[in-house]
């Protein structure tokens, strides 16, 4: 499973279950990641402020500050930091709450080791890819929207919002494929780079959030339209 490309990438692992933390730390170290363990929310923030990380694996039910609060704080400090939530909480509300806070991926316990490693590598790959593309064509303007892909900034009229890496990538993909119907499957494969059979709902949650940010009336979208039975289409 190991790969030179990711060697030495720094991961902050926030997990209070001792047994699981030991196992995860061992496996991530075997993949040649540099792992730092935090056992609660407060420690997670302290570690995040003291070091540079490439990715964060975050449990939700942790002492002092829960995972959502940690994600919110980290997101406000660094909108591009990839965050993977790894939790036993499976409800749709939790998943949506996490994705709305801007986490990039949500994996529920019990999980498959291989899937976790693939998702981590996918997120790191996307981070690198995003850095390279955002430097080439970093700004987009249409009607009343303006997107800065480098700073992950979206301005709609007088309102401005920060985007997550995933949201930025999703918008970038839509813009590059303007006026073409794109299926959920394609989005999952091209943007998330994961097997489309896993989670098509993830796409819908991201689209819903983007519409909330971009559209005047998210129930009647102008930019990201749903095409029944086919997927989505972006037009400006």
């Amino acid at each position: 499973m190991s790969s030179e490309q990711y060697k030495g990438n720094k991961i902050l692992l926030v997990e209070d279950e001792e047994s699981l933390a030991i196992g995860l730390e061992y496996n991530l170290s075997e993949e040649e990641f540099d792992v730092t363990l935090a056992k609660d929310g407060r420690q997670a923030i302290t570690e995040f402020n003291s070091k540079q990380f490439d990715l964060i694996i975050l449990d939700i039910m942790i002492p002092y500050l829960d995972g959502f609060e940690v994600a919110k704080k980290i997101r406000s400090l660094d909108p591009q930091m990839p965050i993977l939530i790894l939790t036993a909480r499976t409800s749709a509300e939790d998943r949506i709450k996490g994705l709305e806070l801007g986490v990039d991926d949500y994996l529920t316990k019990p999980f498959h080791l291989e899937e976790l490693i693939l998702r981590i590598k996918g997120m790191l790959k996307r981070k690198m890819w995003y850095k390279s593309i955002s430097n080439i064509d970093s700004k987009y303007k249409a009607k009343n929207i303006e997107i800065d892909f480098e700073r992950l900034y979206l301005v709609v009229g007088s309102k401005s919002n920060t985007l997550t890496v995933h949201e930025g990538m999703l918008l970038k993909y839509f813009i590059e494929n303007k006026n073409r119907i794109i299926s959920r499957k394609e989005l999952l494969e091209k943007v998330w780079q994961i097997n489309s059979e896993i989670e098509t709902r993830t796409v819908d949650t991201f689209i819903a959030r983007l519409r909330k940010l971009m559209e005047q009336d998210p129930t009647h979208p102008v930019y990201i339209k749903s095409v029944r039975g086919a997927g989505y289409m972006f037009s400006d």
Partner: protein
Amino acid sequence: MRKRNSLLYYVLVFTSAQIAWLSLVGLWIYWYVSNYVIMTKVGENVPPQIISEASNVFALVSGLILLVLISVSMSLIFIYLTRQMNITRLYDNFIANITHELKSPLSSIQLYLETMNSRNIPEIKKKEFLNLMMKDADRLNKLITSILNISQLEKKHLAYNFQVCKFDQLINELINEASEQFKIGKDSFIIEGKTSSRSVVDRSALKIVINNLFDNAAKYSDGPVKLKIHLEANKKFIQVKVSDSGIGISPRDQKTIFQKFQRIYNKNVPNVKGTGLGLYWAKEIIKYHGGKMSVSSPGIGKGTTFTIELPIFQTAKRRRGKRLLKITRKTKQQMEASDEF
């Protein structure tokens, strides 16, 4: 559509309903009084067939009684509804907690199995992983047993093994066992006081209670655990006070802490694990022994004291003690009979 879970919504509906019927009564009385005034003024000119005073009074009184009945019924339904909503909320919390408690050790076991399957692991690491897996399996087992036991306890189907015990000796044994299990060093707890009294106790059930208190003390302490166990007896009861130096419990939470599924959500709590069944279970066990269990805490950050009172066998409620022993004999006979089959 969003579910209306807010209690405020139901309080508003209830208050509006109450205002509506009170206004109706007000209007009704106003109508009756104004009619009465008119009738007294012009009554002499009205033919006697039209005036039927008795039936008007009857309609008013019976109407008022019916309205009061409706109001009482509405209030009862409202109280029942709020109770049910509270239970549902607690039950939802319980499901979330139990899911977490079941899935965490399960994911850990799965992770180690997959690790062993996919990597070449040194023997020493393998042993470490196996030990961690056994710990997780034990945690799962304890959790499942406790859930099943709670259900049995509520149906009064739990097989108790009551015996007359020298309480002093028994509690010392249980405290030492709990301190070993929760890794609380000998210098971290003291036992004060003595009693020569005997009590009818199920050893394994009382062990659950003591373990629960030790486990909570360890979980809810910011620094090293410090415990003081005080033992004394009066004429009727043996009293055990277990005081810890933990994060304490607010007066509000003290009222609900023994309720089923109840958990305290506080940012200063250093532990988030639990099912909300432990203290409920402990209290139910003590109640079944004919005793009482209570909690007191001077406040947040000032430690907590749990007090257990168990009846002395020689003096108080001897009949109850004998009944508990009879239950044990009966259970044993039933078990022997089923073994013979």
